[in-house]
């Protein structure tokens, strides 16, 4: 997935100023940056939700020239938050992913997708009655149902996720990040807006750091997540790989590497 010179103007403000970025299949690409730096706007432009100038290629083809159903067959998009208009149950929401593309015939996918996001048994609950984090996982299950196979006929498929772990507890953050990791390992492409720099360092192959509607840095986590770039971008000193003063508890997701998986 490639984006060239993306510019977006919302209302009277220019929100993105000529953004170029590349995400490769087989990798998890994380978009990070301070609040309001334009991460969501970049995703919404590249997925065609808002008008923009520039060009976006997906698997080498210009997305502007493709029909919604063609794109839906190779790309699933999870928005930052979703409100549902009517009292649908969880499984009815997830089933909406079935109506698109190649997975349409496979009617047990919704249940399997819910199992993947650890929501087994939630099938007949009302979506509106779930907590924010549970709703977010339902939406992810819907996207997974739509884009179940990371590769079809040698062509990669894409998961585009806006803050997929933002309101999740740490256990489910791992559940979801493991899922994206697995999807990329099997050949698919993942582009995710991330808030948590630790999880980003742990799971991303590539990091795109945004600031004020521009790309401040992109590269591998160890190239981008340095004292200098982070301090400059976030406007306050952020030392990397430094333990806090003695006696102050701290908790790093990376420490999971030393234990059994959950």
């Amino acid at each position, binding site marked *: 997935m490639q984006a060239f010179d993306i510019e977006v103007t919302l209302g009277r403000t220019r929100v993105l100023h000529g953004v170029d970025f590349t995400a490769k299949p087989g990798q998890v690409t994380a978009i990070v940056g301070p609040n309001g730096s334009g991460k969501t706007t970049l995703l*919404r432009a590249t*997925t*065609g*939700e808002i008008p923009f100038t520039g060009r976006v290629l997906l698997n080498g083809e210009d997305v502007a020239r493709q*029909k*919604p*159903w063609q*794109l*839906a*067959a190779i*790309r*699933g*998009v999870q*928005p930052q938050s*979703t*409100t*549902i*208009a*009517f*009292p*649908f*149950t969880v*499984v*009815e*929401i997830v089933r*909406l*992913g079935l*109506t*698109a*593309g190649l997975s349409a015939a496979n009617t047990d996918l919704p249940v399997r997708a819910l199992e993947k996001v650890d929501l087994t048994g939630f*099938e*007949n609950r009302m979506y*509106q009655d779930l907590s924010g984090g549970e709703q977010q996982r339902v939406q992810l299950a819907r996207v997974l149902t*739509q884009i179940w196979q990371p590769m079809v006929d040698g062509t990669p498929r894409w998961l585009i996720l806006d803050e997929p772990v933002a309101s999740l507890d740490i256990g489910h953050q791992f559940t979801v990040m493991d899922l994206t990791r697995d999807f990329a390992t099997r050949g698919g492409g993942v582009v995710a807006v991330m808030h948590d720099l630790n999880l980003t360092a742990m799971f991303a192959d590539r990091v795109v750091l945004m600031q004020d509607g521009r790309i401040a840095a992109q590269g591998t986590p160890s190239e981008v997540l340095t004292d200098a770039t982070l301090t400059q971008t976030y406007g306050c000193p952020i030392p990397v790989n430094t333990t806090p003063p003695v006696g102050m508890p701290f908790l790093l997701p990376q420490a999971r590497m030393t234990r059994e998986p959950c």
Partner: protein
Amino acid sequence: MSLAVDAPSVHAPPMDRRVQARRLTVALSLLLAVTSVFSLAWGASGTSLWAAMADLAAGRELSRLDRIVLFDIRLPRLCLGILVGASLAASGAVMQGLFRNPLADPGLIGVSAGAGLAAITAIVLGAMLPPAIRELTGNYLVPISAFFGGWGSTLVLYRVATRHGQTSVATMLLAGIALGALAGALSGILVYMADDSQLRDLTFWGMGSLAGATWAKVMAATPIILAALAVTPFLARGLNGLALGEAAAGHIGISVQLIKNTSILAVAAATGAAVAVSGGIGFIGIVVPHLLRLATGPDHHSLLPNAALLGATLLLAADMIARVIIAPAELPIGIVTAVLGAPVFLWILLKRRGALGL
């Protein structure tokens, strides 16, 4: 204590609302058939459907009076009731899906008023049209005009109330009130210009009634309403997707613009034709889809056909009430649906106030 330590926990088989909805479709079809028979049997005159059927079965001729009452009065009225009830309820359901809002009803938000204004215009000023056009449109002048009225108002409403794919409930309702008031005022001016015979038509029509049912009206409304109803199955998937919002609907492969345009056209056609032949009959379009969502959920694949069936049944039932409650005179059916529907509507508002952000 327990022996079966490793026994898998027993789950009740998950209830699937799709199965319930299909059963409901069958039940509602039967109910509509039964109601239709009663509607034919029910009326002010002494004609008895049962006696007539016995006569027919025995190969006897029907009396002239019985023939007229059954075939020229009750049967067209039955057909019109089914058509109008089905189209009001299905339009309500489509409109609510389109606006992502259970309160969007063509009657409530000024679409019926717009269609009504156009219909009145056609009734009062139609005579001024060049004969060639009147020749061409014939019976269809009023329904076609009502269609354009309904279409225009829906377009205006959608423009005003929807920003970035999100419909504001407050804006939609207020714009609907403004549109309804404007259409009402303009209709009032036209009523002043009407002559006596037009006036009688208009008064009865304004309150909503099936009393003027004729085969001509049935013929005028049937193709338009059937075409609109025939389109609705193709909208079901799109309207389900729209519940996620316009952007997300696009991402699951729905041509959002196509669905929106088609929905608006179908609603305008069905509402326009219904208004043209029966006037403003309210609340069917909001109460019926709401009850069905409570019963079997909001999936439009079953909601749209079930709404048409239940709408037709309820309208026939309301019509029977309208015919007998002050017999030998009869009440405009719009009054019956309002008296029964308005409290249900208030109850919906009470229960859903929070969820609607009002």
